[in-house]
């Protein structure tokens, strides 16, 4: 995969040669204005339903392995 990635980067490097110093970068194509909405509470998903999708739910929480390797 290293060879493939190098090949792709070599192709991509072509744009490095373009003189674009004065060009503004585009992060987003739609002109967006910041708008505020009323802060109205909405119901959230029931905890049980969300946990049903988890690989290892326990006592109303997501269980994960210990961050410390076992000795």
């Amino acid at each position, binding site marked *: 995969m290293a060879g493939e990635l190098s090949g*792709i980067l070599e*192709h991509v490097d072509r*744009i490095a040669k373009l003189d674009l110093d004065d060009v503004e970068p585009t992060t987003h*194509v*739609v002109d967006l204005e910041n708008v505020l909405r009323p802060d109205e509470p909405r119901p959230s998903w029931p905890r049980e*339903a969300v946990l049903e999708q988890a690989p290892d739910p326990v006592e109303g929480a997501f269980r994960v392995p210990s*961050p410390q390797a076992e000795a």
Partner: protein
Amino acid sequence: MQELRELTVAQAAAKIAAGEVSRSEYFEAWRQAAAGDELNAYLCRSEQSDGDGDGPLGGIPVAVKDLFCTEGVETTAGSRILEGHRPLYSATAVRHLAEAGASLLGKTNMDEFAMGSSNENSAYGPVLNPWDRERVPGGSSGGSAAVVAGGLAPCAIGTDTGGSIRQPAALCGIVGMKPTYGAISRYGMIAFASSLDQCGPLTRDVTDAALLLAALEGRDPCDSTSVGIEGGIRAPQRADLKGLRFAVPAELAHDAIEAGVRANFEATLKRIEELGGEIAEAPLPHAEHGISAYYVIAPAEASANLARYDGVRYGMRSEAAGDLVEMYETTRAEGFGDEVKRRIMLGTYALSSGYYEAYYGQAQKVRTKIAADYAAAFAEFDFVVTPTSPSVAFGLGEKTDDPLAMYMNDFFTVPMPLAGIPAISIPSGLAEPDGGGPQLPVGFQIAAPAFAEQKMLDAAYALEQAIGFDARPEGVGGG
């Protein structure tokens, strides 16, 4: 049953609304067709209709790309890492289809997380092209294109980030449309590259594409980038192309295009002139850098979006024991396929300190230049036209060892998402591949200014009527 499947979506919806065709009989005809899928195009199928509402799509079954969340129905994005995932909610696009009276026919196979141009990157096996089962259907919405072309669904929806609706539509001989960024809500659409991703229809004809787009578009409070299409969308109508100006990129003469595709493209340009349209060349000098910009921006955004798959809250977790960090690593190593890993690495590299400006920053500037090229073209022209894909459908396995060659399939389709503008691919005939072999479908792409969907659909409709493409893969529909 066969006759019911001959109807376009618009025809079927009209007959259902008039009581001439029963909804249950219509659904059953398509359920049976979908059950006979030999193309590996469906990942799951509905046993019964879930739609009973009246509306413009009343009684119409729709095949949905597996990138869209569907409440209670497995949604994998073509990835092992989401195997068995049943979302708690449906994507807004899927909800809009249901509100228009449509029902879910099934979820379609796709390149993993929509990363691919051949559908060979699915964790659930490749989709076969209904025209030639040894060839790819294109991607990433390969399943959605194959079910429509193969007579396994009346219509489908997909997503397009760099061509993922238009290219498979072209390779399968159907209509595929990418609307303006913001036309349709992305809520519940599993994110690949958020500044590029857009939902759109894959249909047998332009009229059906308009019908689906009318139901799909709209502002959604759950997606702050969605704005909808002002005035909505109506059935396309136009008999000629008089007074319309079509730009052909001046650089096209030097681009690598198969001989058959180029001949078909030129024949289609003649057809436009016969309909009264005017054709001239326009410079789009930065389009050739579209692939470079796209393959920096899309992987960069993907590397951030895909960080959420960590084996904690949903999806699969590796069985391999270990501490927390090892669990993350093994889950992602086992859950993601090669192309997804490749793009995550490319993306994180392009965003890394010291390389950010050279790659990501520069790509965003190229994006500005590409958008400016199109804006300049649209100051003089109504549309920009190109072939949708440089080649007809290629063989399974032909490009899997060469990612860059695979990326080049997107040459004509990546500039539009980068510029945020809409484009449609319509079938424009058949052509022989460069290496010889059976005749395969060719797509003709029409790009338009942002939110000019109606005008684009009207022009595509006029051209479609003049072309009169009615070829079908063997054993489909009438066969």
